[in-house]
């Protein structure tokens, strides 16, 4: 029998993701992968996996699973998220530590109210075939993941290991530093010259609200309209993840993992890669501010974030007592969901 997680309820949108499908954008294939790659990597590290292993991305409302393997070691990462295990002795396991579950145990993922997304890694990883080198689900073209779509009731998510290894559980010793109040850093361009100077000023001074129109392609923000100085149609060109594209309405859209590889709206700025996880965690109704940095500074931020991440992984420690809960891992930030559709 296949070892897996049986889906009792699928949650709003639960998909298999890894760090993305790299190298195929020239033929129109989006990178996809975890919206918050930082949390996916950390969940994998806690579960004892390579950081880029396939795991489950859970958006806004969590799924419920039954273990249909001898045992499975799982680790959840997400601000304020937790696992509630229904058993003879119901218990709650906070995000930020691994835990072993046995055949027949049922657990529900609680996303919490602080972040739009959380990541559930399973020791050994999720055994779905790679498509163009990645397990990531890209729903629009039905690529990757489990049948190229979000999980549905009755699915069995196949696991690579039928039984958890014999070892101590792990946990994060410290909550992550809070950054929620800090503005999101952007590099201006590549098309800021398509905008009135006041639009750039507004982007960098006004407060923007995360709208309900948000999904894995992008999140639409509400704020003062960012006015173009000429037309808002450009000759279609390539789009980087984090691009802030502004259609005719003047309401910006931050493009995320499943964004189209190319598009025809001017892009006023690009969110630095170090801040993409913070954007991914935004929930509808959250408020955002932006601050500009130079490209060199953005590259340094990326290097610093990677350095801090390595320190965090190095700090993972064995859990003292099997059921002791000393800290909930509290990411400080916010998060995402919805529907931003592209058109051609």
């Amino acid at each position: 029998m296949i070892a897996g997680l049986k889906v009792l309820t699928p949650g709003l949108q639960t998909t298999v993701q890894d760090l993305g499908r790299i190298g195929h954008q020239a033929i129109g294939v989006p990178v996809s992968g975890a919206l918050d790659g930082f949390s996916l990597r950390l969940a994998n590290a806690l579960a004892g996996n390579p950081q880029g292993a396939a795991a489950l991305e859970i958006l806004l409302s969590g799924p419920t699973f039954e273990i249909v393997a001898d045992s499975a070691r799982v680790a959840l990462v997400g601000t304020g998220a937790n696992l509630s295990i229904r058993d003879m002795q119901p218990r709650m396991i906070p995000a930020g530590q691994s835990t072993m579950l046995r055949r027949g145990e049922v657990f529900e993922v609680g996303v919490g109210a602080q972040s739009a997304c959380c990541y559930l890694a399973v020791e050994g990883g999720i055994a779905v075939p790679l498509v163009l080198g990645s397990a990531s689900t890209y729903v629009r073209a039905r690529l990757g993941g489990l049948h190229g779509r979000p999980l549905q009731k009755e699915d069995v998510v196949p696991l690579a290991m039928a039984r958890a290894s014999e070892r101590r559980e792990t946990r994060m010793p410290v909550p992550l530093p809070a950054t929620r109040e800090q503005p999101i850093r952007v590099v201006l361009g590549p098309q800021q010259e398509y905008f009135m100077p006041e639009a750039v000023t507004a982007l960098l001074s006004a407060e923007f609200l995360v709208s309900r129109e948000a999904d894995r392609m992008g999140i639409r923000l509400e704020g003062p309209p960012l006015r173009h100085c000429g037309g808002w149609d450009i000759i279609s060109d390539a789009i980087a993840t984090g691009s802030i594209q502004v259609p005719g309405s003047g309401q910006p859209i931050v493009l995320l993992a499943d964004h189209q590889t190319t598009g025809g709206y001017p892009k006023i700025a690009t969110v630095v890669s170090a801040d993409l996880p913070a954007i991914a965690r935004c929930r509808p109704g959250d408020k955002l501010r932006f601050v500009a940095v130079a490209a060199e500074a953005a590259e340094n931020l990326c290097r610093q974030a990677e350095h801090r991440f390595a320190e965090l992984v190095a700090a993972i420690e064995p859990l003292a007592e099997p059921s002791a809960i000393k800290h909930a891992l509290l990411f400080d930030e916010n998060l995402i969901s919805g529907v931003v559709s592209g058109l051609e």
Partner: protein
Amino acid sequence: MNVRFLSAGDRALVVEFGDRADRALSERVLRLDAVIRANAPNGLVETVPTFRSLMVYYDPLVTGHTELEQAITSLLDRGDNPGAHTTLWRVPACYEGKYAPDLAEVAQLTRLTPAEVVTLHSSTRFHVYMLGFLPGFPYMGDLPEPLALPRRANPRVRVPAGSVSIATSLTAIYPYESPGGWHLIGATPIRLFDPERARPALFAPGDAVVFDPIDSASFASIERAVENRNYVVESTPVAA
């Protein structure tokens, strides 16, 4: 060669050749793309050629945009850039009945007969400028002047996979069902994108495409052959 380097964050650099969609700029973009792929600079992740610019993705843990700009500039200065090998594809397309829901309207808007629209479209050799929007979606041009129309005022929620479409100076084929605002003047049964193939996207930027009109009976038989992975789209190599 005068180009502009524009930053697209800390992981991508735009090499912009101009602000128009035309063949001369496209050839320059595709030549630089081929040279960069052949001489992969340190830290290169991937490239995306578009109408008038080349996006170069890099790993900021390995390189930086200043270093990359220098590397790209030295490649631009090479006079003997090799042209990429390209292919001419003959794409069967049915311009009849349910396969061509907008043909009558396009004929009306362009003051042509439906037959004239089909003749103009199927007698043009198109250049694949770029792929984007959806996996394998080709932006091809240029349409004969009389066929140039703006996008539909009311985009469709569902455009069927295989739809042959026109808008502005371009023509395209939808590889997947998706929303879309282009005019649908025909359909092809061939599969533009298949991740199981060694080359998942049928066309590459720089390729040439010609549409061959077929009737609905041929459409059905080709569709079956495609389903059985028993159909090969006619193609011939084109010297660079």
